[in-house]
Structures are given as C-alpha cells and as structure tokens.
C-alpha cells in the first residue's frame, strides 16, 4: 500500500520498473483479498489461528527455504546498514561530547529531530533521490537491497548517535579534568571515550539494530518487497498477512520476535557487566 500511494502521488516523476509494477499487482491482489475478508463473514477465528501457529512452528523447525532466505536477507541488510551507521554515528557522538564548537547545540538538536523522522518519509526521500529521474538515478539502485541499506542508515544514524552521545557526554564529564591534565590531544580524547565507553556504545548499536530490523515503511517504499530480491522479514509479514497466509506470517513474526528478545537480553546483560565493570 505504501508503494501504491507513493506512485500515485508522483506519477510524473517516476517511471515504474517492471519489478515495481509486478509487485504493485501483488499489492492489488492483497487489497482485494483483504476487502473480501473484511466484507465476508468472520474469517476462521481461533481455529485459523491455531492452524497458523502449528504450521508456523513447523516452518521454523524444518527451516523452510523461503523463511530462511528472507531471514538471512533481513539480517544482511540490517547488519550492513548498522555497521555503516555505527562508523558514522559513534565517532560523531564522541566528537560532539568532547568538542565545544558553536554549532554543537544545533547539531545535537538536529540529530534529535531526525530521530523522530517518520521512516516512510525517509523512504520517500530516498526514493526521490534514487528514482531514474532523480540525482542518483543513473546507479539504478532503486528496488535493490542497497537502496534499503541507504534508507536504514539514514533512519539509524540519528538514533545511535543520540543514544551514544548521551552516555559519552556523561563519561566525558568524568574524564574531562584528567585527560586535559594529561595533555591528551583531541583525537586521543575521542579514542579514550570510544574505547572506555564501548559497552554503552554496543547498547546504542543494539538499539539501532532493533529499530532497523523491525522497520517496514521505508524499506517497503525503496525496496519494493520483491520476492527473492528485496523481501525481508517485515515486508514479508505485511504481505503474507494481507494474503491471509498466516502460517508464513506467524513464522516470520516468531523470527522477528526472537531477534528482538535476543537484542533486549543483550542490552540487559551489557547493563549488568557495565555495573560490575567486567571487560
């Protein structure tokens, strides 16, 4: 549906690739099914749900090829985006903590504002830039995993930078006198913060992972949810649910929930080692 809206609003700007129109048809089907369901009597109800659950479980246990493929793609896209985002956001956070310059407050305010940006809008903007008529159209990146990575990087950088900055600023207020007294250079100060604040930074990165892996709006717009190409956990769940394929949707949902829980356990565990001062 996201795709549809974007296309209808900007028909003159974008020429739809084959992939898109194909996916668009799927989208249309989805709509039809959904409306039929809504109009008809109650859908399966509890029985449907139970059947879905047991099938989903079966898909997980047998490592269903589609499910594995989609999960791996999700992980690849999100981890790549996260790695790039961290390379940008963490040094930026340390720099903002250590350095007093005139635009510092403004930069922090902008980061915080960007954090609240609706992902769909990020997707839309990336779409405009990558579409064939856009400034980066020649690279043909629209509806590729690369486009999804770009969108996720834009969504995750402000979040990671902002969380990391908060803890690094705290660390810096502790280290400030000592490092200045020792004549540490600007670069050495940043290095010390990044190294000694590594647990907090990992927590920030995990939060970024959580946000990126569960994101659907932006990557739907720029990725197009193309089977075997740009379909990831979230977009697949949206699609399968719309089609009424609860088993697949639930199976994918379990994977997503498992990942989210794993991330939260990691954050919790990091918080514990932080207070105990291990590693």
């Amino acid at each position, binding site marked *: 549906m996201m795709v549809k809206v974007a296309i209808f609003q900007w028909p003159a700007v974008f020429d739809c690739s084959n992939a898109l129109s194909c996916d668009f048809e799927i989208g249309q089907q989805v709509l039809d099914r959904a409306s039929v369901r809504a109009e008809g009597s109650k859908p399966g109800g509890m029985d449907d749900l139970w059947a879905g659950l047991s099938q989903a479980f079966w898909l997980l246990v047998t490592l269903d090829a589609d499910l594995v493929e989609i999960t791996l793609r999700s992980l690849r896209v999100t981890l790549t985006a996260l790695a790039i985002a961290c390379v940008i956001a963490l040094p930026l956070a340390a720099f903002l903590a250590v350095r007093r310059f005139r635009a510092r407050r403004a930069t922090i305010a902008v980061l915080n504002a960007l954090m609240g940006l609706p992902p769909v809008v990020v997707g839309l903007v990336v779409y405009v830039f990558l579409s064939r008529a856009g400034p980066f159209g020649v690279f043909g990146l629209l509806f590729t995993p690369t486009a999804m990575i770009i969108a996720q990087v834009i969504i995750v950088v402000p979040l990671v930078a902002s969380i990391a900055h908060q803890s690094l600023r705290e660390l810096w207020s502790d280290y400030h006198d000592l490092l200045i007294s020792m004549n*540490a250079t600007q670069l*050495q100060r940043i290095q*010390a913060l990044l190294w000694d604040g590594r647990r907090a930074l990992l927590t920030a990165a995990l939060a970024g992972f959580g946000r990126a892996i569960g994101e659907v709006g932006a990557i739907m717009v720029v990725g197009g949810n193309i089977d075997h190409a740009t379909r990831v956990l979230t977009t697949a769940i949206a699609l399968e649910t719309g089609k009424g394929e609860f088993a697949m949707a639930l199976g994918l949902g379990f994977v997503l929930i498992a990942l989210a829980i794993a991330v939260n356990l990691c954050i919790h565990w990091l918080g514990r080692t932080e207070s105990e*001062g291990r590693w």
Partner: protein
Amino acid sequence: MQMFPLVAKGAQVRRRGKVLVGPVDLTLGGQGTSIVIGPNGAGKTTLLKMLHGIVRMNGGSLDWACPLEEAQKRQAFVFQTPVMLRRTVIDNIAYPLRLTGVGRKDARERAADWASRVGLGEILQRQATMLSGGERQKLALARALVREPDVLFLDEPCAALDGRATREIEEILAQASDNGTRLIMSTHNMGQARRLADEVIFVLGGRIHEFSPAKPFFAGPGTSQGRAFLNGDIVE
C-alpha cells in the same frame, strides 16, 4: 630548560559572578615542597587547578619560565577525587605513557613497577572502577608519577589513606622530591604538612592569606587566622 619561577599576577577565577580564587600574586621558586592549607571551601583545589592550568582564568596572568606548551608536558595532577579510567589498574597507570607514544609493552612494564611501589602490585588486572577509595588514591599517584613529571600537584592525596599507607606515600613523595620533582600539595593533615613542607601557602576565602617558609609558620603564624587554623579553632 628551567620551568621556574612560576609567576602569578592578579590571577583570578570567577564563576557565576562569585570570586572563587584571587586575585593571587605569587612567585614559586624551583626548590622544595609547597604545602597548601586552609579550611574547607577556602579555594585550595581551585588554586591548584589554576596553577596547573586546567581552569579558565578570568583575569590576571600566570607565567612559567619556559613556554607554556613545554610546561604543560612536564606537570601532573593528582585529583582530590581520583578519576578512574574504565580500565584495569595497569592500563590506568600505563595510559599517560601511551599518550606520549610509549609502546604498549614498555608502558606496561613501567606501570607495573609503579603499581608495586604504591602497593597495588597484587591487583594489576582488577577493574579500576572497583577499587576502594584508598586504592584509587594510590592508583592516581602512580599514574601521576609514571611520567616522572618535573612538577607534581597533589590535592589531598592521602585523605582516604590509613596511617601506614600515608607514611608509605609520604616516603614516595619525599623520594620524588629528592629526585628533583617540585611538589605542590594541599592537605588537611597538619602532621603531614609539618613533615613535608618547605614552604606553606595558607589560603582563606580564595586569597593567599599567608605565604611563608615552613619553619617560621609552624613556629608561630604571622596572622591571627593562621594561628587559629593551626590550633584547630574556627577561622573567620
């Protein structure tokens, strides 16, 4: 190159319209140990930090005999509340050396040596943030001495130490002093002040109330406030 004399002229530190220290006119020579004493809140910490050059001054001047950049490299500071880097004890002590480009192995060897001198030899691999107050002060001292500075500022370095550790640290400080390190130290321990001082800086209300050689000061301070402080009375 000669660092001293250190000359302060009308040096002042103000925060939020309130004068914390100053105006200070002071000339410190290159010999001996200066002990800074005075009641709580008198401005001892602020004065030491100002002389060390890590608080912004709001007036006056502070000049070393050598270029500032060189002077900065040859000083170290032991803070009243020691700052623990989130690392192991040995990495804390090695850190100042690493900053000046000393190799990892060499830095660790020298750090281990200093750690055992201050009595931390048994806990080299412990996280510094888990140390007790006294152990933290020992660590801070070793970390300050590892670069073998020409000038060492110490802000109540023995405040959290037991009697025995205090004596051990004084021993180390006396040794450093004999080796030519200029010590400028604040303390509330008058016994310690008597043992270490060559000259006394008595601070009151942010100003240097008395500055005199140790012997005459402890024999009989020149001001009534100085006498009251030494007697442990309330100083107004």
